[in-house]
């Protein structure tokens, strides 16, 4: 709309004495009527009253106003009121602006001159702005009447239950394998000394059974987009290697060696079971335990272990199970084929030192792998088996099983399996050698390394 057609009406409210006692409304009115595009400017005792509203309507009809500015209280009080006035007369309600000369002006000073000056400025700004306003049309957008609650502690649980009881669907996302949060770790609650579990567990069960709640445990929110009423949320489910549909919570898997729940034995919630991937040593005990107890209703889906066939199980139960894990295969090998296996695997090594570089345990300033006394520089593959043996022994006591070494090895050598194997061995089997401490043994090994035929350049063993 070009500015020449714009006709603005300005209405200054006295608000009883709330405004008029400080702001000289007549001066302001006179000022407003001089502003560009202003056709009419008036003041009145209460603009929000019926007569006040009528005054605006009349002017719109008779003077053909197409913009209205009301200088009065905060828009939080009466914006809707005045927009209604415009709408009643057929004007778009967004051709309206409000200058707050009460909370922002008359109430905060007793200096009449300053207040009057400020009121003028606020009105001048509102007039300047209203000229540029465009008509807006409200429309309806469908919303999803669903809620997402992030975090399954007691607060999240209660929020989810309240919303769900009100009839809305709730997604409850919890990053740990189980909901419950801190409260599940407490014994009594302050100040009544009520039993914490007695409050929490019924609510946890309600969440599990509530038809309006979808529980996403062991999951994390990775991305939120969209807008109010139509959010799009991406949730990553972490693998737990347990099929919650078939798992019956017997907890036998947890009794096997290295699952996270070892200590929590006997206090399991169905929802809590997961195999800790980083600690899995591929021993397969969890799957075996689950199979024995639950037969074909196996709940453990540990992929590292699934491929195995259980040497210990009677043959008829082995059927249908795929071949062993690498770990199983190696354990079952006789010593000659085991040596051949490792020779073959380790001869793939291109000596990138990646396994050492990423290992959280390998932190030495000077690494023995670069000591020419042990390992001939510049040779690929590096001396068998010293190169890998050195590292394996150095980290054996501390390896946290993170698997980074194996993940980063460009030749995909099963480096973590070496560690898993060492963990299975009692100390006698690994020559009682204590990494970093055993000096005589180190000398013996150096001597052996020097005499070893594999040390000659280019000759493969």
């Amino acid at each position, binding site marked *: 709309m070009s500015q020449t057609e714009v006709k603005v009406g300005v209405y200054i409210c006295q608000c009883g004495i709330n405004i008029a006692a400080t702001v000289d409304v007549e001066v302001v009115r006179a000022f407003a009527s001089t502003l560009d595009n202003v056709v009419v400017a008036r003041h009145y005792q209460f603009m929000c009253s019926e007569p006040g509203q009528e005054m605006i309507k009349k002017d719109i009809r008779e003077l053909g106003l197409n913009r209205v500015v009301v200088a009065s209280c905060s828009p939080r009080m009466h914006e809707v009121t005045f927009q209604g006035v415009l709408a009643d007369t057929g004007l778009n309600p967004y051709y309206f602006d409000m200058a707050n000369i009460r909370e922002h002006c008359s109430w905060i000073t007793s200096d009449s001159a300053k207040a009057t000056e400020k009121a003028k400025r606020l009105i001048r700004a509102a007039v300047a702005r209203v000229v540029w306003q465009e008509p807006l049309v409200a429309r309806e957008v469908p919303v999803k009447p669903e809620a997402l609650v992030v975090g399954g502690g007691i607060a999240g649980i209660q929020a989810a239950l309240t919303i769900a009881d009100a009839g809305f669907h709730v997604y409850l996302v919890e990053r740990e394998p189980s909901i419950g949060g801190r409260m599940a770790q407490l014994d009594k609650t302050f100040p009544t000394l009520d039993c914490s579990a007695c409050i929490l567990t019924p609510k946890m069960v309600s969440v599990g059974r509530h038809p309006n709640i979808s529980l996403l445990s062991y999951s994390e929110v990775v991305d939120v987009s969209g807008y109010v009423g139509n959010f799009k949320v991406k949730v990553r489910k972490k693998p737990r290697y347990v099929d919650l549909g078939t798992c019956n919570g017997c907890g036998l898997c947890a009794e096997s060696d290295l699952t996270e729940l070892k200590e929590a034995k006997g206090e399991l919630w169905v929802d809590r079971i997961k195999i800790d991937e980083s600690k899995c040593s591929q021993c397969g005990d969890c799957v075996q335990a689950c199979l024995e107890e639950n037969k074909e209703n196996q709940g453990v889906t540990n992929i590292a272990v699934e491929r195995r066939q259980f040497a210990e199980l009677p043959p008829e139960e082995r059927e249908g199970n795929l071949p062993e894990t690498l770990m199983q295969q190696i354990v079952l090998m006789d010593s000659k084929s085991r040596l051949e296996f490792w020779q073959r695997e380790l001869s793939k090594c*291109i000596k*990138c030192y*990646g396994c050492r570089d990423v290992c959280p345990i390998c932190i030495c300033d000077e690494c023995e792998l*670069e000591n020419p006394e042990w390992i001939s520089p510049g040779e690929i593959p590096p001396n068998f088996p010293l190169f890998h043996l050195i590292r394996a022994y150095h980290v054996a006591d501390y390896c946290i099983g993170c698997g980074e070494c194996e*993940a980063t090895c460009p030749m995909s050598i099963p480096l973590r399996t070496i560690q898993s194997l060492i963990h299975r061995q009692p100390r006698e089997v690994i020559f009682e050698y204590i990494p970093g401490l055993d000096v005589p043994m180190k000398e013996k090994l150096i001597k052996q390394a020097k005499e070893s035929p594999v040390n000659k*350049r280019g000759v*493969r063993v």
Partner: protein
Amino acid sequence: MNYDTILTVCPFCGCGCQFYLEVLNKEIAGLIPCKTDEISEGKLCIKGRNAHKFVYHGERLKTPLIKRNGRFEQASWQAALDIISQKLNESKQRFGPDSIAFLSSAKCTNEENFLLMKFARAVLGTNNIDNCARLCHSPTVAGLSSSFGSGAMTNSIPELENADCILVIGSNAIEQHPLIGSRILEARDNGAKLIVVDPRRTPLANFADVYLQIRPGSDVCLLNGFMNILTTEGLMDKEFISQRTEGYEGFKQKIEEYTPDKVQKVSGVSSGDLQRAARIYGEAEKASIVYCMGLTQHTAGTDNVRSCANLAMLTGNVGRESTGVNPLRGQNNVQGACDMGALPNVYAGYQAVLDKVAKERFEAAWETSLTEKPGLTVVEMIDAAYEGFVKAMYIMGENPALSDPDISHVHEALSALDFLVVQDIFMSETAQQASVVLPATSFAEKEGTFTATDRRVLRLRKAIEPLGDSKPDWVIISQLAQSMGSNQFNYTSPKEIMEEIAKLTPIYGGISYERLDKGKVLAWPCLTKDHSGTRFLHEEAFTRGKGRFFAIDFKEPAEMPDTEFPFTLTTGRLMFHYHTGTMTRKIPSLNSEVSAGFMEISPQDAKRLGVGDREKVVVRSRRGEIQISASITEKVAPGVVFIPFHFAESAANVLTSRTLDLEAKIPELKVCAVNISKRGKP
């Protein structure tokens, strides 16, 4: 504290692994592998893991240098650019545009290669521009273009994992393209059969189902014999041959001459092994050929490549997943340097300078007239410099004084020049001979793109500000062009250069920084902004229409061993170093692995000559001699010796010959005749 990780690309080999540079308070603090990268999957080789370590090396060039009275003096950029524009103009006016020659770099970004070729063609008006691809894969470009119509790797790297058979010829993939080598081993673990053909027992050979230790330079004979067996045993794909290829009859007659017995005599490979290998390849459902420098650096380089193409077509192993003919490009951006037209006979995207339409397109875009006379190749440039036809050279990030054959000749040629500009990050052997040296930035200090060996375009990202006074190559070229009066080089970022490339280069038409930054894997041909790139080529039809069989005669290498020079020398690279070592030899963890050159010799020969392990010997060829220590190993067969070419102080390329493949103009770096004597004896 300010910490950031920048995803960027490895500056070494053509695998194109991506990794993160860790930047702490504006300095590179470390390097982390990127687990989501399709190629590296969080794995890197030793060079990649240490790639950041040469960036801050004390010998980095940081100011422009001008040689006065035989000594380098520091100079301002203005002074350096002035003298360069003056000298280049002078040369152009006095001796014509073709008295100037440019060497572009396979280490620089696509944008920079594009700019240098634009500078050479549009500003100076010469097509004398080439890059080191001439010394590695020019036969690939020539050979595969004539057979298939496109001179690039046909399939992508990850596809190798699913092949049923992989035939590796003349490629030491585990050491030179580790992340491809690892895929080959992966394939083998998945049940694929592996055939390795190499005169040297490379690490990969130890995993081969069949290893053929071939006499250097007899590849055509061996491959013809291979195909002879396939046709006799009916293992060819008749339908594929009749529907998608031409020239089969003539080819068939030719290979009939190559019976297994004849091949055994010529190549030293037993006919039994050859038969076994041929059957494995012929019977495989998806067979892939992988080759590298061992095949191309010969006078018969182009013939060798065409033979591979013949083999793939004969068995219908092209245009499908996990098959194809796959040259492994050495430098991280040698593919890109060629794609960008840093070649004497083509513009960007392999549009021939002889093609009127292409010429007009570039003339219109650059508002100038271009010459249609194809330029000189690397070795020809050096010869022309030697003979005085080329007066001035501009070398961006290359080191011909160590990488080219017969380097004493190269030295003489470079000193015969009136004017030589070298743009590099270190004072290389070549830079020492320059009149002006311009300090460029390393990969960590600039933006751009690289194109990996399987045609994947990758984003290089800037991690730190240029060191000292150095500038990215694209800035240097733009400023030089501007100071020579061109108004065609007003770029504010490499992104704008890529936009120009996309406009002028159909195969790069759909490449843009926006798409790459969204993490898209785009391999050319990528024609439009909604084209998702091409993982393998020639699916429905060959780029040239029908695949073409070539009947190829076996020719002996140019220089055969004789009584005076009884050994065959073959050259190559090591795991721990890269080419002329300007970068890798400055990384302590790499240099401590191998710090000096050596010559591999078989135990039998060593015994005969009375040479002990690590003893210094003198190696002579018709061109020169070097001293080097012997390393006795069974990796090489009797009669053959191997020297890596990284080391200036015992440079293999003093010995090598510059006899060229007539078509691709590649010198025969892989075969020459030498003799060996103990030190102090003639």
